[in-house]
């Protein structure tokens, strides 16, 4: 299993509904708001993502908040920042309670950009493609030492 994915135990190949939020972004600090602001700035599609800020929330509160967002918005993908994070643990529990929910961890701006630009695709396909995009976006530029 890839470290970026949590299996939810159900297929995720249904096309997504157009118009509303299509995913939730949950992370530490202001990560979610910050990365969604960047998505909005670049694509204008920031509204396709819902942020979850977890300041001061205990594990049960995070899980409740995620479950509420999932149920109210219809979003079926949860992006989290760290595999070792309380958001990921809570999201894993939500995916267990709602087997059509998919969790993607270690999310980055390139992944989200790809995802929001492919609104009509099936969530699992879009998520996998987004992960591939994010991987190829990781590059080292420069850094040559003397003598190289």
């Amino acid at each position, binding site marked *: 299993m890839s*470290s970026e994915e*949590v299996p939810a135990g159900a297929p995720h190949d249904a096309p997504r509904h157009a118009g509303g939020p299509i995913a939730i972004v949950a992370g*530490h600090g202001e990560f979610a708001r910050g990365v969604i602001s960047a998505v909005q700035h670049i694509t204008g599609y920031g509204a396709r993502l819902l942020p979850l800020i977890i*300041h*001061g*929330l*205990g*594990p049960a*509160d995070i899980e409740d908040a995620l479950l509420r967002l999932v149920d109210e918005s219809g979003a079926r993908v949860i992006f989290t920042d*760290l*595999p*070792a*994070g*309380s958001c*990921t*643990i809570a999201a*894993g*529990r939500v995916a*267990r309670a709602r087997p059509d929910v998919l969790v993607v*961890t270690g999310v980055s701006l390139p992944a989200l950009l790809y995802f929001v630009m492919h609104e009509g695709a099936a969530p699992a396909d879009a998520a996998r493609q987004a992960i591939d995009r994010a991987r190829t976006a990781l590059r080292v530029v420069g850094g040559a030492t003397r003598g190289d």
Partner: protein
Amino acid sequence: MGIELFRIDDRLIHGQVVVGWGRPLNVGFIALVDDEVADSDWEQELYRMGVPPEIEVYFATVQAAAGALERWRADPRPGIVLTGDVDTMRRLIDAALGIAAVNLGGVHHRADRVQRLRYVYLSSEEERTLRALAARGIRITAQDVPAARPVPLEDVLVMRGES
């Protein structure tokens, strides 16, 4: 080396533990002491998922942890022992000898709790338990991450969430 930190954190294994403390302490193992998690393969898989392969994770009930404590202390690798609440740490201390210091790393909002620090909310029962542990000579400080200032229990208990 052995156990570097006994920590109460209701988020259990998460970023602050694995990265925030794990990296500077060069942690080789994390012992998660929780009766429910110790009884659930699914929960254990969830917590293991976020831990890099170089860190070993043990899941133990309070009783099993008390029995394993000497082995963990003798481990050449630095380790962290985690409980999810004050009472579980109290039960571990009652069941095992030699726990000299406890880190309050994260006890979050609940209806019966009062906010003391940004990351510490305590019920009156939890406050009584912590005071009793301190009276037994156990040093209790609140500190979410290594870079933060440790706050002694007596200061925590007079705060109202201002820091």
